[in-house]
């Protein structure tokens, strides 16, 4: 079974001080134990790097190491031309505007690679808009 792990989960999981750190860690362990295979996309790797380097929360070498590890413990979905074609369709179908395009690109990537479940703390970014296309699993 495939599951897409959103950027916020990785940020919380790598911040021991976060109030969501324990929940993110436990959720990943539980999902793996239940046979889910973690998927991310190149977009998630970029966003993770942005979130953790912006105020030097982690050193560059730590961020690099974590990005490398994330590529090993997940299946990384590439943002290919067919993903962009899917994005174009979804933007029109759901009247997507502004920064919501970035969430829409996650959905387009999931659609193209047939991943229909996402773990995220930001449930409202995906539901109810994309109900029917994907299942949103909340962190809490």
């Amino acid at each position, binding site marked *: 079974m495939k599951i897409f792990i959103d950027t916020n989960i990785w940020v919380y999981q790598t*911040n021991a001080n976060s109030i969501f750190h324990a929940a993110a860690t436990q959720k990943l*362990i539980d999902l793996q134990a239940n046979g889910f295979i*973690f998927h991310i996309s190149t977009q998630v790797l970029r966003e993770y790097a942005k979130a953790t380097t912006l105020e030097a929360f982690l050193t560059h070498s730590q961020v690099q190491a974590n990005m490398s590890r994330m590529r090993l413990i997940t299946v990384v979905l590439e943002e290919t031309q067919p993903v962009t074609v899917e994005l174009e369709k979804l933007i029109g179908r759901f009247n997507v505007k502004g*920064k*919501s395009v970035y969430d829409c690109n996650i959905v387009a990537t999931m659609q193209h690679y047939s991943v229909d479940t996402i773990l995220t703390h930001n449930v409202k*970014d995906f539901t109810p808009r994309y109900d029917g296309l994907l299942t949103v699993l909340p962190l809490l």
Partner: protein
Amino acid sequence: MTAIEKQTTEAIYNMYLALPDEVKMEVKRLIDDAVSVRPEPFTVDSLIKGNWNDEGKTYSRDELYDDNGR
């Protein structure tokens, strides 16, 4: 591979070749997906941990990107 297996494999391959391109792409994607290498297991120590005050950030894309998309 036995003779019957070889014959069956060739028949399936010929059926694949006869498919329209878009269907071929979907078949190829499904096969690639099925045989793709499984990732390494995730453990609590897989990733290096930091220790910062996230000030209640949600790391939604509304926060992650500025108005110029950066």
